[in-house]
Each structure stands twice: as structure tokens, then as C-alpha cells.
């Protein structure tokens, strides 16, 4: 399956025309990771958004961080994301640092990385693409929030 078709099957770009998706494909590049590779790290500067073309990643956040205690923070998993999902979109929207660490959990996981500024420039220059992408990012963030709410609701068993 072509990268254009893979991105078209992601909710983020699914309602764009193939020609519009091609414009987004032209901005980015493929990257392949293996299990345990860290793709982005919480607190780092952000410059790309990622679409998962195949494989699986795990989103983790540091818990119980005490400033005066040395050593690596304890990372707690939030969720796993598979084919068609996106990550890195929070920093795309708010331009802040990475809000979580994302680690690959399956060998050969293929991602499509899209530079944040180039995507912003495309959205600014073509408001039809910009509206669809931003609406779909909002919908994706809402879905993740619902997912997390349900996780917490069921936490007690």
C-alpha cells in the first residue's frame, strides 16, 4: 500500500482528497523503529507529528518525579497506539515540549513523520486542508480523552 493510501486511512487525513493527501506526503518522510526504541521523549522540544503506518507504540508519562532525587523517572504506560493512529499532535497544536514519551513496542514499526512547521505552513496556505486537519486533530484528541476516561472508570475492576 502506498504512503498516500496509508495516510488516507488515518482519521487525520481521511476526509482529504488524494491530491490533498499528496501535498502532505510531500512534506514528510518514512521512519522505521524496533521494539524499545524511544521515538520521542517527554520534555524534549517538538518538531514533528507521526502517523503509524504499521506496528505499535506505547505512550508513557513520568510519575512520581521528585526534583531532588536523582535517577531516571518511573515511566507509567498510558496507552498503546496502532495502525492509523497519530501522536505528537499535542505539540503540533500548542507548540510546547513533548507531553509524553513514546516508545516502539513492535520490531519494524513504520511511521510517517511530518515536520510541524511545514504542516502549519500548508494549513495556513490552504485553509480547506487546514480546516480538515485541525478538525480531525480535535476529534482525535477527544477520542483519546474518552479512551482515557473509560480506562480510569474501569480501573477499580
Amino acid at each position, binding site marked *: 500500500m502506498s504512503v498516500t493510501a496509508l495516510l488516507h486511512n488515518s*482519521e487525520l487525513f481521511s476526509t482529504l482528497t488524494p491530491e490533498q493527501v499528496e501535498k502532505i506526503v510531500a512534506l514528510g518522510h518514512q521512519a522505521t523503529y524496533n521494539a524499545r526504541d524511544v521515538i520521542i521523549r517527554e520534555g524534549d522540544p517538538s518538531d514533528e507529528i507521526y502517523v503509524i503506518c504499521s506496528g505499535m507504540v506505547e505512550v508513557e508519562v513520568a510519575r512520581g518525579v521528585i526534583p531532588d532525587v536523582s535517577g531516571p523517572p518511573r515511566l507509567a504506560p498510558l496507552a*498503546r*497506539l496502532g495502525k492509523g493512529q497519530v501522536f505528537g499532535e499535542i505539540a503540533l497544536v500548542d507548540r510546547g515540549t513533548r507531553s509524553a514519551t513514546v516508545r516502539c513496542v513492535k520490531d519494524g514499526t513504520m511511521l510517517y513523520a511530518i515536520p510541524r512547521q511545514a504542516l502549519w505552513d500548508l494549513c495556513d496556505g490552504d485553509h480547506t486542508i487546514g480546516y480538515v486537519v485541525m478538525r480531525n486533530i480535535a476529534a482525535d484528541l477527544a477520542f483519546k480523552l474518552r*479512551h482515557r476516561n473509560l480506562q480510569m472508570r474501569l480501573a477499580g475492576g
Partner: protein
Amino acid sequence: MIYKVSYVVVGQPDLGEIVNLDTPPRVGDRVTLGDEPCEVIEVIDLIPPRENFAYLHVTCRPIQKAR
């Protein structure tokens, strides 16, 4: 139709996945979440479908608890 599925596991808030599937999960299906074999016990529409996407929420329980 693409099924965007939110999997959660009863009693295990750190286990869960979001993934796009070509076919919808069904009650009784066996899935592995993390390294945990689980059984699907509920499938609901999380939000109304939009364009070619359906949005499902799937509740699972670990297999050993089901026995």
C-alpha cells in the same frame, strides 16, 4: 468502513490500545493487550460514525479472571 477501536481492560488502567481495524471486534473475541490475553466482554459505539469511520469502545477482561 474503518473501525477506530478503543480497548480497555477491567481493573487494569495501564492496559489499553487505540487501533484502526478493518472488521469490528465482537463479544467473545480473544485479543492480546500488552502481553495480557483478554476476552472481549462488551462492544459499544463510542460516538456516532463519521465519513468512513466507526468509533467503537471495547471492554475486555483478562482471560484468567474469566475462568
